[in-house]
């Protein structure tokens, strides 16, 4: 019997362990992880492929992290069955583990659509360290790569492959890349930077068939696009997105939608069972609803909230919202909130665009409140705006300063500086 059992040891599991130990120094924590060393930075796998980081640099906690926190880690094992009425978990080696409080932090799994020929050798996904090491081992013998998906993962793996001297073609189904987080103008700016690095970007299409080599059908030789064109390649990376890994909940009464449903204490509908991170649908404070937001900082925070509550400290999750910062192709970008709305008439939009310096700033307002932002190249102080957004501050009195170069906390009324920012 373990007081706390955590399934999954990445950001959410780390957050939960650290929060539990803030409250309860002694209660037994058991961590079940398929990965042998899961406390590494998943977003850094592209740095591994590009050669900028080794696994040691990728670890986001010290080597004694589990020992220091008195965690019993069962690694290389998968939790395959949950018996929630008897509070038992079965592992794939048939071991049974009993728990008092359970956290399901199984994260996400890459979404791989069914493509004709998709089972050939040379088709990879890109979310874990094993994906990255496998890809890394293929680079030397490869020349041309097709990256399917122009989202964050697609852009990050593209940069890594370009750094390694490969010729990349990026294929994106939507009209522009990074369409979930960027408007058309900012998307064009980063697209141009990526193309200048030698990448071919094809939008409005995807791949419909993967073809094999004439002498070995099982090896990737190219991809046929939905427009009928063919691209020769040795590797294909599917980077369309991640979906919650909820298979373990299938035979249980746990309520799920696309992810596991949780309240703002990260409790599921079953007593003593919690969920957080990419597998859960947690609270978005801007949209005021629960939804999937598979983002590292939120996964960690949600894990912490779950951990506190599991250990008996009542903590309500203040919520997250869409937020991304990008470092790729020498174009720093920060975006959060609503950045590319369908109906712009509902919003007041402040913009600044200096093409020569590749500076773009756009702030979306609704009823005099900040609801979204995009900053390119001039990203400093974005966090002040995030705070104004999160606190729902009325910005009417200092609206004209928002987009100015001098904007800072000094631009805010004194009462606000004192109250929200605790600065005189």
């Amino acid at each position, binding site marked *: 019997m373990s007081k706390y059992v955590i399934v999954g040891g990445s950001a959410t599991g780390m*957050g939960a362990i650290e929060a539990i130990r803030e409250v309860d120094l002694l209660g037994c924590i058991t961590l079940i992880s398929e990965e042998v060393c899961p406390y590494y*930075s998943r*977003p*850094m796998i592209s*740095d591994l492929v590009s050669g*900028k*980081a080794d696994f040691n*640099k*990728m*670890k*986001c*906690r010290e080597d004694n992290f589990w020992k220091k926190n008195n965690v019993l880690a069962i690694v290389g094992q998968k939790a395959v069955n949950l018996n929630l009425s008897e509070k038992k978990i079965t592992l794939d080696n048939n071991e049974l583990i009993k728990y008092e409080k359970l956290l399901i932090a199984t994260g996400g799994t890459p979404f791989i659509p069914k493509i004709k020929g998709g089972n050939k050798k040379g088709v990879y996904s890109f979310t874990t360290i094993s994906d990255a090491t496998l890809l890394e081992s293929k680079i030397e013998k490869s020349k041309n790569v097709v990256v399917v998906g122009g989202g964050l993962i697609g852009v990050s793996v593209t940069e890594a492959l370009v750094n390694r001297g490969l010729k990349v073609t990026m294929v994106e189904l939507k009209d522009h890349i990074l369409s979930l987080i960027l408007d058309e103008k900012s998307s064009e700016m980063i697209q141009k930077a990526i193309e200048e690095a030698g990448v071919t970007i094809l939008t409005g299409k995807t791949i419909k068939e993967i073809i094999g080599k004439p002498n070995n059908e099982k090896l990737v030789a190219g991809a046929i696009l939905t427009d009928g064109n063919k691209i020769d390649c040795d590797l294909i990376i599917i980077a369309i997105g991640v979906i919650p890994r909820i298979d373990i909940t299938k035979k249980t009464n746990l309520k799920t939608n696309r992810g596991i449903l949780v309240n703002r204490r990260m409790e599921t509908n079953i007593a003593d069972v919690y969920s957080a991170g990419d597998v859960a649908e947690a609270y978005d404070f801007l949209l005021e609803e629960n939804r999937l937001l598979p983002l*590292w*900082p939120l996964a*960690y*925070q949600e894990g*912490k909230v779950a951990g506190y509550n599991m250990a008996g400290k009542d903590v309500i999750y203040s919520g997250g919202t869409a*937020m991304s*910062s*990008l*470092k790729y192709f*020498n174009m*720093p970008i*920060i975006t*959060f909130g609503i950045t590319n709305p369908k109906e712009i008439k509902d919003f007041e939009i402040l913009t600044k665009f200096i093409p020569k310096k590749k500076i773009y700033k756009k702030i979306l307002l609704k009823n005099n409140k900040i609801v979204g932002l995009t900053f390119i190249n001039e*990203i*400093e*102080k*974005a*966090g*002040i705006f*995030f*705070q104004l957004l999160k606190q729902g501050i009325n910005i009417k009195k200092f609206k004209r*300063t928002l987009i100015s170069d*001098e904007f*800072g*906390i*000094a*631009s805010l009324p*004194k009462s606000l500086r004192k109250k*929200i*920012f*605790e*600065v*005189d």
Partner: protein
Amino acid sequence: MKKIISKQQYCMGCGLCEVYCTVSHSKSKDIIKAYNRENPRPVSRINLEVQKPVSFALQCRHCEDAPCVDACLTGAMKKDSESGIVTHDYEKCIGCWTCIMICPYGAIMRDNTGKAVSKCDLCSEFGEPACVTHCPNRALVYKEVKL
């Protein structure tokens, strides 16, 4: 813990805090060399905020519940449990800008390489941070604050 407190009523907006922050984090620790010879020049980790007549200097507040520590993708930002200082491990930083996105004070900046961030480290090897020592009107004080 000891923190830098900014006294707006005394700040003249002279900017010497930024100058001496830059010098303190330069290789040479010499104002002439730091400004004329070090290329790229270290960035100031303190922001002089000016909206006349208001001016004050602002740097990392070393928050109790530091959002940058929670959000950091790599473990480069840490809260030292003994000193209370939010430390930034340059070697672990990959310049993902997540902390810049989340810092409510806008107190984290890209460093001069553009590959990592930079922020106040309470450079107290001379007893107190350089910005405090060199503030001509004592608008910056380094003192113990209750948490």
